[in-house]
């Protein structure tokens, strides 16, 4: 049966005249929909959700709002507009025209990067599939679904690249992305953090603030790629990723706001007695999600990252705005590592330190969000400060893996760690408490769960009691 792809799949990649791509998608698209029904948000197929759909890449086209049933969402394929004169900005191929096709010698590297990035997109949908049942409001439920469909679109974006540029291998990889599942012991997702559960909304907001921000930095460095279709794809994805982090930052912010209101009103620190989330517990969740997300950047000294850079397939964050030679062959970069039982700074070849450099950019970005949360706490007149833990705290990957380090960066003995662990990371009891707050979804327009404040503004400037989701 002939399918009108331009209607079904909004795109700016000339899908209607690309037979190879059509053939690939004909096979893949039904599987994607099956995957969405099996592994996407549970029991939501009939809901009408007020969603944003991208139908083109210009300023007006990427944010069209309207009610949609999620399985009918028009997952599009968009690349940022092509710059005809774009050159590779770094590495051995610096100054050459950006590649419009995959160079043979970098084929497997590029495929691996795209697969690793692509694998995270459906993973987070899977991690979040039950959250709708405990949504604290229609507003939040809608934001969750918006993120879910956009992660689905980001999967499409990566699958498009695999289908369009990597032949049979690409098609197999695209299928494999629907076969791996978050937390599945037999076919887990590629990266560790994407096999963790997202069991509650505090975790969800922390995840979107910290872990989706890793995604932002990965996408930003892929947006510098010499492989132009990948760069353009990632640039457009970044516009959507911003919304996910907005949901995370404002979500955590609204919980903080609610907690501070109750602390002031009742003149107490013990907000648990009032059914809210105390700031120390939020700090513990922050510690957990921050360190898990730091691991996603990989080893401090990485041969792979160095190769990617020299080959021109993955750059640094905002590569073109950095004022150096963009070759890095003779440069050094300071990383922190452990030597002789102390955390020390050590200069290493800059090429090998690219993961660490990206991690540093990420940490600075996270810190800006934390400052905004602290302003809200300060404004409420409460004496408490949220802090990012030291980068060595509770790590699983890299130089600090398995080391016992306090949030303020002191190396600890096992006994010291054990004595304090429950102050720094969520305990079973903390998790049980947060779970206990996750009641049935709040479905009345304009109403919010007790532990979270309403947002300052509605989506697309809708009023506070707007019916973001119709359950039918």
């Amino acid at each position, binding site marked *: 049966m002939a399918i009108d792809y331009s209607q079904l799949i909004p795109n700016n990649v000339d899908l209607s005249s690309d037979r190879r791509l059509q053939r690939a998608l004909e096979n893949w698209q039904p599987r994607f929909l099956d995957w969405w029904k099996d592994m996407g948000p549970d029991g939501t197929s009939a809901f009408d959700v007020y969603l944003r759909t991208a139908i083109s890449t210009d300023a007006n086209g990427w944010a069209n709002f309207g009610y949609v049933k999620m399985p009918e969402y028009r997952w599009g394929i968009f690349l940022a507009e092509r710059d005809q004169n774009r050159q590779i900005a770094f590495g051995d191929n610096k100054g050459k025209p950006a590649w419009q096709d995959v160079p043979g010698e970098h084929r*497997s590297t590029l495929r691996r990067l795209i697969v690793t990035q692509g694998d995270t997109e459906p993973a987070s949908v899977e991690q979040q599939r039950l959250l709708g049942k405990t949504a604290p409001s229609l507003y939040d439920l809608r934001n969750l679904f918006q993120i879910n469909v956009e992660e689905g679109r980001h999967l499409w974006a990566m699958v498009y690249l695999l289908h369009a540029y990597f032949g049979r291998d690409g098609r197999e990889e695209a299928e494999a992305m629907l076969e791996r599942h978050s937390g599945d012991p*037999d076919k887990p997702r*590629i990266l560790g953090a994407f096999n963790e559960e997202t069991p509650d909304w505090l975790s969800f907001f922390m995840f979107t603030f910290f872990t989706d921000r890793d995604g932002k930095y990965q996408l930003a460095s892929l947006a510098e790629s010499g492989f132009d279709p990948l760069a353009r794809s990632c640039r457009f994805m970044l516009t959507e990723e911003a919304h996910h982090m907005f949901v995370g930052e404002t979500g955590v912010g609204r919980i903080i706001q609610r907690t501070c209101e109750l602390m002031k009103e009742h003149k107490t620190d013990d907000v648990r007695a009032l059914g809210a989330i105390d700031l120390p517990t939020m700090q513990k969740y922050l510690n957990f999600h921050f360190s898990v997300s730091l691991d996603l950047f990989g080893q401090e000294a990485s041969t792979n990252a160095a*190769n990617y850079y*020299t080959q021109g397939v993955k750059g640094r964050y905002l590569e073109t705005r950095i004022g150096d030679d963009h070759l890095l062959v003779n440069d050094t970069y300071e990383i922190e590592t452990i030597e002789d039982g102390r955390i020390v700074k050590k200069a290493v*070849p800059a*090429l090998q330190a690219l993961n660490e450099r990206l991690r540093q950019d990420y940490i600075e970005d996270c810190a800006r969000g934390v400052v905004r949360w602290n302003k809200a706490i300060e404004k409420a007149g409460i004496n408490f400060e949220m802090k990012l833990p030291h980068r060595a705290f509770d790590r699983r990957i890299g130089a600090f893996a398995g080391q016992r380090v306090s949030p303020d960066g002191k190396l600890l003995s096992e006994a010291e760690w054990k004595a304090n662990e429950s102050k720094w990371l969520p305990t079973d009891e903390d998790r049980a408490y947060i779970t206990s707050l996750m009641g049935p979804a709040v479905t009345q327009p304009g109403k919010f769960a007790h532990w979270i404040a309403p947002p300052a503004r509605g989506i697309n400037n809708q009023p506070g009691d707007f019916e973001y989701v119709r359950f039918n």
Partner: protein
Amino acid sequence: MAETAPIDFRTEPSRYRHWKLALENGVAYLTMDVNEDGGLKPGYKLKLNSYDLGVDIELADAVQRLRFEHPEIGAVVIRSQRDRIFCSGANINMLGLSTHDHKVNFCKFTNETRLAIEDASTHSGQTYICSINGIAAGGGYELALACEQILLADDGSSAVSLPELPLLAVLPGTGGLTRLVDKRLVRRDHADFFCTTAEGLRGKRAKEWRLVDRLVPPSKLVDETKKTAEDVAAKSARPKDAKGIALPAVERSIEGDTIRYGHLTVEIDREGRSAKLRVNGPAAAPPADAAAIHAQGAAFWPLALARDLDDAMMHLRLNETEIGTWVLQSQGDATLVEAYDALLAKEASNWLVREIVLYWKRTLKRLDVSSRSLIALVEPGSCFAGTLFELVLAADRSYMLDGVFDGSNLPTATIRLTSMNFGPYPMGNGLTRLATRFLAEPAHVDELKGEIGEALDAEAADEAGLVTFTPDDIDWEDEVRLAVEERAGFSPDGLIGMEANLRFPGPETMETKIFARLSAWQNWIFQRPNATGPEGALKLYGTGKQSKYDRKRA
């Protein structure tokens, strides 16, 4: 002496740093868990279950011990302790820091270990099974290839690969290419794709292309491996109720340039760049039967001598690289050696005797590929009979004294053949040393069977073609001195190449291909700028800099 502390090949399970050995229901589990900081030399970390010579010395020790110490074990599982990583092969930084001769010695030893694994599967009833729970790259996959069955976790990411060519511009160094097409019979076009794809293959395609035998969901991998291994073990002909013998550390003393073992003395002549290896025959008559052999255990003369000789060869190879000629001598009563051979032949069906004979086979093969000039001296008082005569046959040249030394009361030198010269000790080419020696006259080998047990003097030995030269006592000293001195004057590289070409005439086997291709192709590539030059791939690996190849096809 070598610049650094000599590498010691003697170890035992309680001293392992990189492997765990566990036994259960007739199955041995060899679990790889490489200690990052446990490298043999400073300057590199053994990340991601990568290995250096030290890791392989432990593996070789375990393979050897399982055969002798555990007759009840019928299957051996090789697996990894690490999450999602089976083994990432030889450590690249170690290779980058190593001298050429260390690299070659390392490759050679690891090859011998892999072949010993296959020998155990084929001849000892200890079948190796590999259980891959993650990435098996390069030498990691080659280790799997040495096993008889490969189980791969089917989790969408576990993969087998030989990324040497695309990543490092070298070849897999432990027989990977040969085993792909010669052992697993992977189609050559499939092998071509596989060997040029750095990330390798996983899941269905790995199975369809014969790279692995079975795909197993990761949650079932441990149980399936256990079940498979226990089934294999149950079918093994090894005696499940027998008791093994202990292999205590080989005792040796190194005093200056003399190394003394229980049954072997090595004397190094640094100026002459040669070493005399003198093996001692048995001091007493052999025990009565297999049970008595068992009672003697590691002290049983043939086993004790093989262990001495094996250790001496490994020591000299790695730690005495400038000692280019090994002069092989013996001392003792040939009648006793013959009696030991008769016992080995009579009790050949006993599991322990079988292991001892197989061990001699491997030890003699190690001698064949040691990259040293071998000169055998058959003198009065020597005992080159049967098994020990294989040393003379292994030599590039042999000298046998015709007559006696003036003023000595020792009788005339003789050699003897036993049935052990006609089958149990094939070379890598699959032929006995006698058959290899007389390729032009296969019938002559049969005729020689008629000489079994005869004490052949120099004239008879020369007549039978069993020795090279037979000088008399007046010429002896000069002839022998000149032969050794002349050897020391030639280019060591040229000699190695020449000797290896001449030593293995006759048919090709997987084993000869592995060693020949290693020494020819790999060593050539290891020397070429595209691999080891300042801009070569092996040199630059890990720096993030891209190699610049000389694009000329040579």
